[in-house]
């Protein structure tokens, strides 16, 4: 039999986590990586994977010793495991729902996205193979991926590298990058989404 305290621990972890727990955990992750002599930056993995797949012989930007970056690939692999465990064994009773504000549900409705009451799914329906037959799904997965990969390397970092690691080290370039992230994100949200969803 599974002891009671273990079940209680599982239930405790399974609740939705408040924002401050998330923030403190992210800071802890950044600290652990610094303490291990590394740096928190997930998008670097795209470059490492390119190099490992042979791009190191095609372009000097990818001439890196990718084996020195193996640790970062392991963080990514751990994130895959973590995502599997959190969604399969530590799901809250309504773990498939994102608890967004009522105003957000209204904004989504104005774009033509309808939901039952305010039960907005945690993961949208266009993250699926069948959605690829629809130009919107294709644009979001393939187009979004390309922009994220290109932009992250151009800016030299993503949310983890700039917004977390960079701002924590009081780096002005990271602040500029984060301002760029928001200008781009707001342009997409306010000006391009009405064209995509209507």
């Amino acid at each position: 039999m599974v002891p009671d305290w273990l079940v209680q621990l599982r239930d405790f972890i399974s609740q939705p986590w408040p924002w401050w727990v998330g923030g403190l955990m992210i800071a802890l992750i950044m600290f652990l990586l610094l303490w291990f002599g590394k740096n928190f930056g997930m998008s670097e993995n795209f470059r490492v994977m390119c190099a490992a797949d042979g791009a190191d012989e095609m372009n000097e930007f990818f001439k890196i010793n990718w084996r020195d970056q193996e640790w970062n690939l392991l963080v990514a692999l751990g994130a895959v495991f973590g995502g599997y465990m959190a969604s399969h064994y530590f799901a809250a009773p309504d773990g498939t729902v994102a608890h967004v504000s009522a105003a957000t549900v209204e904004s989504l409705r104005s774009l033509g996205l309808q939901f039952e009451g305010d039960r907005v799914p945690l993961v949208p329906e266009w993250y699926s193979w069948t959605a690829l037959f629809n130009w919107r799904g294709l644009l979001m997965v393939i187009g979004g991926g390309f922009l994220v990969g290109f932009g992250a390397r151009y800016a030299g970092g993503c949310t983890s590298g700039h917004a977390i690691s960079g701002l924590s080290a009081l780096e002005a370039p990271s602040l500029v990058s984060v301002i760029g992230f928001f200008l781009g994100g707001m342009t997409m949200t306010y000006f391009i989404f009405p064209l995509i969803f209507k």
Partner: protein
Amino acid sequence: MRMSRYIFVGILLGFTLYKTEAVSWFRIFEMFHFQSFHMYGIIGTAVVAGILIVQFIRRYHLKSVEGKEIVIPPKNKTYPRYIIGGFIFGLGWALAGICPAPMFILLGSGYTVLILFLASAMAGTYFYGVIRKRLPH
């Protein structure tokens, strides 16, 4: 196994971003509409705690597990790349609703289609490597 610690950190990251709903497209949509404090709370807490951690490391010259000085590599002080690259990243972040870490996490939670997002992000990274010399930095 010295390398297993990185898998552990990754698992921690997976739980954190999944359980705080930061992996949700809708949470990112909400953030860019400034309709909830939630995402700002996550990033804000992480940055405030992160600043304290970095100050502590620098002041007390904390050593890494291998006994070396912890160095945080400074960023180049040129600005076009950060604003233009950041803008392009932001477009993709809002469109797909995922940045690199949530992509790995959602892939693990069963959204196998995101392998195409990964392939596309690698293509974007490669494209940057190819045209990098012609871009303002």
